[in-house]
């Protein structure tokens, strides 16, 4: 038991994560070829516009259900909304935001763009604190669009062209099908003014997605309404990211490796639950923490992955330097 624990704490997280991501990417982009269907309540951007996806993003049924006429929604359809949400929660409870860091194909795609940039020897960009604070709110605006616009349709304030308004803007709608060779989404819909604006925004966001993710790690996740939705339910999950403030020296190692630039991970020493709304639960912070047990990833009360001095040294490539014995 002790041995297994040590092995896990010493693991090369980067490698493990890469393999899991690759596997999930294949599953959620090409799973359809293997006739896999995991339903339409998935807490990730597995876009059903891509016919080969092995499941679908929950935001689609959510928008459809909420856009039903008010009377129906308050009647029988309300149950559908609740069961839909339960379906979403069912998936979510197991992995929490690790869906973002390990499973979401759209997240993985961004990580691959990051690898590409790294290979080219270009340094990543960051936001200033000021920009961060402002931009961080955008995902909630998108979440409001996901929830509010369909409701407005239901009461008749918005017309049918607003159907799945977020999807029309979402870059995943444009990019995901292209991954299985379908470029039909790369257009602007001129059928109505609204559709034109929304799909044009979608094209713009898709362009920004590539440019942004190339220079900024996990560029899109920062604006993702799914991430905002996750955060609302994150406390109910069986997996948690926890911190023991008394062991933290605020050295900032976790912050230095954080793709999402979450400052609290280093600076906050009072909260035990250190998961923040931008977190993608990639666990790079735990892997980069040099203090024993200061950060840990828990499944229920069990510490599945803990920061350790030994693990830190292994992952940072700290070994006995050459030439030590030459002196003697």
């Amino acid at each position: 038991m002790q041995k297994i624990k040590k092995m896990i704490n010493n693991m090369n997280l980067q490698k493990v994560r890469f393999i899991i991501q690759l596997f999930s990417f294949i599953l959620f982009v090409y799973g359809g070829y293997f006739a896999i269907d995991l339903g339409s309540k998935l807490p990730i951007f597995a876009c059903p516009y891509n016919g080969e996806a092995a499941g679908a993003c929950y935001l689609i049924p959510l928008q459809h259900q909420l856009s039903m006429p008010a009377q129906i929604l308050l009647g029988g359809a309300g149950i559908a909304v609740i069961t839909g949400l339960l379906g979403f929660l069912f998936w979510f409870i197991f992995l929490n935001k690790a869906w973002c860091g390990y499973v979401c194909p759209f997240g993985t795609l961004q990580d691959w763009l990051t690898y590409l940039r790294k290979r080219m020897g270009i340094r990543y960009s960051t936001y200033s604190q000021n920009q961060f604070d402002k931009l961080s709110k955008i995902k909630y605006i998108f979440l409001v669009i996901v929830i509010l616009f369909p409701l407005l349709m239901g009461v008749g304030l918005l017309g049918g062209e607003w159907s799945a308004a977020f999807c029309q803007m979402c870059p995943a709608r444009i990019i995901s099908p292209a991954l299985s060779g379908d470029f039909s989404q790369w257009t602007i819909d001129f059928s109505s003014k609204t559709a034109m604006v929304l799909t044009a925004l979608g094209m713009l966001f898709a362009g920004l997605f590539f440019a942004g993710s190339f220079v900024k790690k996990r560029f899109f996740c920062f604006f993702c309404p799914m991430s905002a939705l996750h955060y609302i339910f994150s406390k109910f999950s069986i997996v948690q990211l926890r911190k023991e403030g008394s062991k933290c020296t605020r050295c900032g190692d976790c912050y230095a490796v954080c793709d999402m630039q979450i400052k609290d991970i280093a600076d906050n020493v009072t909260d035990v639950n250190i998961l923040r709304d931008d977190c993608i639960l990639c666990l790079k912070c735990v892997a980069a923490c040099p203090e024993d047990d200061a950060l840990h990833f828990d499944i229920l009360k069990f510490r599945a992955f803990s920061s350790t001095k030994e693990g830190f040294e292994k992952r940072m490539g700290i070994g006995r330097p050459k030439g030590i014995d030459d002196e003697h």
Partner: protein
Amino acid sequence: MMNTEMHHKIETPKEKQNRHKAMETVKVLHALKEAKNPITTMEYFYQRFEDVYCHQKSLHDDKLKVGTMCIQIPSEIIYALDAVPIRLCNGFYTDDEIGSDLLPQKACPLVKATVGHFASGNFSDKPHFVYSPTTCDQKTKAGATIEGFGYEVIDVDFPRVKESEISREYFRRSIREFTLDLEKKTGKRLTKKKLRETISKIGYAQGLYHKLCAYRKEKDVPISGNDMFLVTNAFFFDRIDSWIHAVEELLEECEKRKENHVSINARVSPRIVYTGSPPIFPNYKIPMLIEQSDAVIVADETCSSNRMFNDRVAVDEWFVNDMLDSMADKYLKACTCPIFTKNDDRIRRIIDLVKTYSADGVVYQAFAGCTVYELEQRSVLEAMEKAGIPILYLESDYSPSQGGQLSTRVEAFIESLKMKKRKQGK
């Protein structure tokens, strides 16, 4: 004729200084060697200090020597540019006396001794130039005084608020400026490969220190606090490869001692966490008093020891600027120096050390004149009281004459801890 000339030769000030420093050195080393259950592999360190301070032996003849005035100058960068960092914080009473003529009477003895050392110009390894981070007032101002003796002193901007985002950005820029300046001076370029190597090397040295500390958590402590101070102080000036080699051997011996239950403490010896103004060789006055009174220092929170090794550098993408930024953060954000506006981190660290090293009490020492440690004393004492941790506050300086009064207080404190321990034992 020759003979009489020899006898009547008048000692130069430099010779006198060397003789006095040698005396201070021998006195401390002798006391350390006399301690209970001495460690054989410590001989390397005793010899190192004797070589440097009794025989003025140079350790870095061939290298460019970069003087540093505080721990905030990243040695990783200096090593990566093929130079050697030499930390110039000084613990000699002899130099303190020289410095006393140059600085206000109430100035900190550490700063006085450092300035005195520069004034004498008497170095076994003379720095080619000196980087001085703007930490406490006295060190900040000392830079200008030292410059007056004909040294090149480069100020490195260091913020005094560490919580703010501005300070993070400020020090990151400051470290980049420092790197550029050092690149110019060495005529070398800082490469990705070289910097990564030296980060890893310092990381390895830090790891050895952490391993050494792990032994101090044991019930039978194999190594004394004073020996530990000597090991960490040697890092100020030693050749890093030899230091690493010596500590590896020390670790092996500690492991053997652990197996055979050889310890320097008795079960009833109170375990002490030491904090405050840094003990720098040969000013081990207070640590010696503590361990001679049958207590054992199991951990410390000082910039001459624990703080140098505690925090590590992590980097996500190993580009030069990422490494520099991460280093800047480490040297600023994790630093528990009392110069900062608020300092809850230091209090948290002390409490954590008391817990993890099962200590019975804390000794907090401030140099008379070390304003920041004197100022912070109250808040630390309050916090310890709240946490139910016994603490003794002492004020001391470098003079050898103060012993009696201090030893009474230290002994009384340790005796009270012992009584408590005995009671709890029953």
